[in-house]
């Protein structure tokens, strides 16, 4: 682990103790996990601390792990300290039956649409979001398409009328 990442890890452990865990450094980015109640506090701490200064939200997305009971959905934040050029990745796992988590929109305006997108595709309910509705899909949609229980169409299916899709038939 690079020296700076060690300092970050130490500072977080001092502040949050066991509630931050699973520290890893993969491909140069420090990655760790935190409790779902803590996500906002942790990001706020990373933002405010004079030494850490993670003031730029690069990316926010979710991942679905259907096999992990009670922690099926992961929300992944990529934060960036632009002054020292350090990136970190924060992960929060939540239960798919209670997909509630605090919004980061109070801290980052950028989180607004990123959270809407995550809500749109994974059905995560960001508590306190000013305008949590679908963004890329139609509003009438009643499922969350990026979840793994909605597989893509079987490419070998033959029950479809190919002519309707411009394939097959007589041209």
């Amino acid at each position, binding site marked *: 682990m690079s020296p700076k990442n060690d300092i970050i890890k130490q500072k977080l452990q001092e502040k949050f103790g066991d509630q931050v865990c699973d520290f890893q450094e993969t491909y140069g980015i420090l990655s760790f996990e935190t409790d779902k109640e803590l996500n906002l506090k942790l990001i706020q701490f990373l933002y405010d601390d004079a030494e850490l200064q993670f003031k*730029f939200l690069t990316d926010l997305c979710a991942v679905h792990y259907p096999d992990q009971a009670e922690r099926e959905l992961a929300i992944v934040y990529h934060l960036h300290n632009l002054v020292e050029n350090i990136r970190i990745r924060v992960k929060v796992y939540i239960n798919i039956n209670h997909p509630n988590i605090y919004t980061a929109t109070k801290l980052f*305006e950028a989180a607004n649409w990123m959270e809407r997108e995550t809500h749109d595709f994974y059905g995560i309910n960001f508590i306190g979001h000013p305008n949590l509705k679908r963004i890329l899909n139609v509003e009438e949609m009643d499922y969350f398409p990026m979840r793994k229980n909605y597989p893509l169409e079987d490419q070998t299916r033959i029950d479809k009328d190919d002519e309707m899709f411009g394939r097959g038939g007589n041209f």
Partner: protein
Amino acid sequence: MLNNKHINLPEGSIEKKTTTLNLGPTHPATHGVFQNIVELDGERIVSAEQTIGYIHRAFEKIAERRPLYQITPLTDRLNYCSAPINNMGWHMTCEKLLRITIPKRVDYLRVIIMELARISDHLICNSIVGVDTGAYTGFLYVMQYRELIYEIYEEVCGSRLTTNMGRIGGFERDFTNAAFQKLEMFLKEYPKVLKEFENLFQRNRIFMERTMGTGAISAERALNYGFTGPNLRAAGVDYDVRIHTPYRSYEDFEFTIPVGTTGDNYDRWLVRSQEMWQSINIIEQAYKKVQAFTGAEAGVFHADIPEYYLPEKKEVYNKMEALIWHFKIIMGEIDIPLGEVYHSVEGANGELGFYLISDGGRTPYRLHFRRPCFIYYQAYAELTKGAILSDAIVTMSSLNLIAGEMDA
């Protein structure tokens, strides 16, 4: 008070003091399929709401079923004004995950192409700002040189707009002499054209009055909104992925990052214009470096990775091993190592990131694109609040919004 039986107005519409106007989804000024619902008080914008998603194609979902090399054509269709940057950004992400080292010559060739793509993207954006302020001439004039850039793409990979250029590990073939000749021609002719293009706008009083002070954003707000690329730099923050986290040997080149101060439409235009000069500078340096290779190195155009790089056709027909690799690659029968990687490149309109999670299978477990203009388009409502409608149009085009990228 109103007693007209023939016209059925929605309730409350007479008392309403403002006008609702739909800009888009197919308005000529949106330059892409997205919508703005603006609330107007006379000509002033009271509030704006953006609607996007009209060309959402579920790339992230589709990518979960495709082997790595088949995802390249999906990235073409993100920012289609500078497709090679997306292609190479994706290839670099794969190379990072697979821990492949790339020969220097490939790096330099990629830099040439990526900078050409940056020029073509900025050229479109800047000339479109001109069109939206009423100056069509510049747009038509520079098209000729975008065409030349597309011809270079064509020489390198065979296609022009959605290029699907390169492979994991390098290029599908070496650059032809014609490609280098066209590049030389571009380097010789384009600076003069760019100078002339600048003369049309930079000190043009009408253009300055239309763009200065409109659509401005402070550095602090821009960072909070997740701005990257020229739009962030116009607000005065010197963040550029090419400098901060050099990829593809960008550390070997000498260039400066132009920075604005006010973050308004005029500064965005200037930053893009200056970046084109810097790109020409980088291409010249890279071309010199490419020419300096001698002996066997002078013909290197890909890394030696038989698991991911398709063997030459001639060998596929004659050698068993090459045939096996060809089959395995085409059928996507190669397991990707387990891992999680985030890689970003300086796309033409901001930081284009790829977040790839592999569970050791043959396709990505999850792929997320960090699309710069999806993120900064959020600020449009704030940028245009209180502005005149015609300024809002200029703001929209100077943000360089690409619907394909926004909707993924």
